[in-house]
């Protein structure tokens, strides 16, 4: 992230450098925030994505500092998850293929139309 700020005392505006955190990471982080916030995203120039988080409920009392801390750790954790995923997905495929390679003796059923 390059910046987090509160606009109009309500909307949280987050700027993310997409060369550090790509869309995979941003999607996964925002998924868990989408219960409490309406989220809009906009790609601006120079690889920066601007994210607007507007609280769905008016009684949302989480402080900006807490939100900053949570978002920062979420981005770092999901980037690590993404690295693990990228580096191990082929191996995971091999593992599943080996584990279930002998399960290809399927019965052919005739289904009704």
């Amino acid at each position, binding site marked *: 992230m390059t910046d987090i700020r509160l606009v109009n005392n309500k909307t949280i505006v987050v700027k993310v450098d997409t060369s550090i955190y790509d869309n995979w990471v941003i999607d996964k982080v925002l998924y868990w925030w989408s*219960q409490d916030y309406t989220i809009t995203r906009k790609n601006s120039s120079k690889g920066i994505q601007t994210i607007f988080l507007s609280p769905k409920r008016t009684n949302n009392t989480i402080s900006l500092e807490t939100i900053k801390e949570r978002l920062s750790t979420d981005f770092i954790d999901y980037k690590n*998850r993404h*690295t693990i995923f990228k580096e191990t997905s082929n*191996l995971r495929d091999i*593992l599943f293929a080996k584990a279930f390679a002998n399960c290809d003796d399927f019965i052919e*059923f*005739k*289904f*009704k139309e």
Partner: protein
Amino acid sequence: MYYLLPFHFRVLQDKEVLTNDLGDYLIVPRGSVDRIVNRKISEEEDLFKDLLGGFFVGTQPIPRLIENMATRLATRKSFLDDFTSLHIFVLTLRCNQNCIYCQASSHDRRDSGYDMSEDDLRAAVDLMFQSPSKHLTMEFQGGEPTLVSKLIRSGILYAEKKNLTEKRSITYVICSNCVYVSDDFLSFCSKFNVVFSTSLDGPEFLHNHNRGKVSSYKRVTSGIQKVRNVLGNDKISALMTTSEESLKYPKEIVDAYLENGFRSIFLRALNPYGLARTNENWLAYYDSFVHFYKESLDYILELNKNGVFFVEEFTTLILKKIVTPFPIGFVDLQTPSGIINGVIVYNYDGKVYASDESRMLAEYKDYTFCLGRVTDKYEDLFYGERAQKLSRIWSTECIAGCSECAYQSICGADPVRNYTTQGDSYGFRPSSTICRKNRLIIDHIFSLLSSRAEEVLPIFLNWITGTRA
């Protein structure tokens, strides 16, 4: 230099819980994953040895033990080999109790039109034998199935006759409130090794409150004793359901189980079906339930420390998934989901449903998970269009919110629950109450394994192996 192997992690206060598809786990200080991913772990560190031993990192791009890893993964999913082994027969919707949380939408015992026909029963048994499973469980449910004991008898006798050539191993289970079980019927049950599963909600005042009958506790406990006398102590188990009222009495409920001669309890939350679906605030209920669960578990652990062997079954199921590579056969904690893969329901009206919860929805005229009728072809029911549609969303490995979760292989996918609570079978994990409940309970178990390992691990291992200390 080391290579990463597939794993997931979850932050638990100042710790990180690492898990993988093989059934290994490791609890490490916060920040360790960042060090692991950025290759900051030295080969001399103890952590490196733990990571290597737990299949979280390897020293080669393709680990030398990949065959071993694949075998462990296949073992973890071996419940799929047998396909559907639990066959639930809802013989009637009529019941002789009046439970405030009834999830089965039961009807008065004098009502008519709610019993399964003999023809449908036979057709359902025929379908059961088309399952490839060597081990079949034929479970009779209701309403109260002993109200139609004639149907239970004919179902068992027909299955026994077919089994002369099928040669399967069959377990018969009757889910009964035990309020009225005749000597003659018990004598029949003893011939076929029938097992009873009953409900006991705790001490007398609480059980009677939940059942809506003043004499329920006395009748149920005497029924339990009667079953024990004829069939044996190990032939009856009990389940409790945690009503809103029950949440106030964690210790009293455990004590009531002990007083009634049980050596285990399954702390079970309410499900949003039947009468229970009218609950106004499920989020608050599940948070209170988790608090109740923790208090009860603490009390049970204290009992065990003082030499009383007493097991909490839900914790044991989760522990088995955490510390062993073996599947547990509990349909709510399976991925791919237990619906169809593990369980099927033949309803009193001859309709076939993907799970017990699916048929409960049908009582509210919602037939989303109805697969067809008992007279339909096996392949159209079990592998048909509806089953195929469900199969796209029944694995935690491939649905949003679960696919990166460290508890992915401990928890389970439940499209029926998603549909009931969120109106969408795919579900939305951030607001899912079952996701929240399971996450908090598994967090708690990992916290115990992390902070009180010396004290709780010997007890937990006894629970898993079923051995007394």
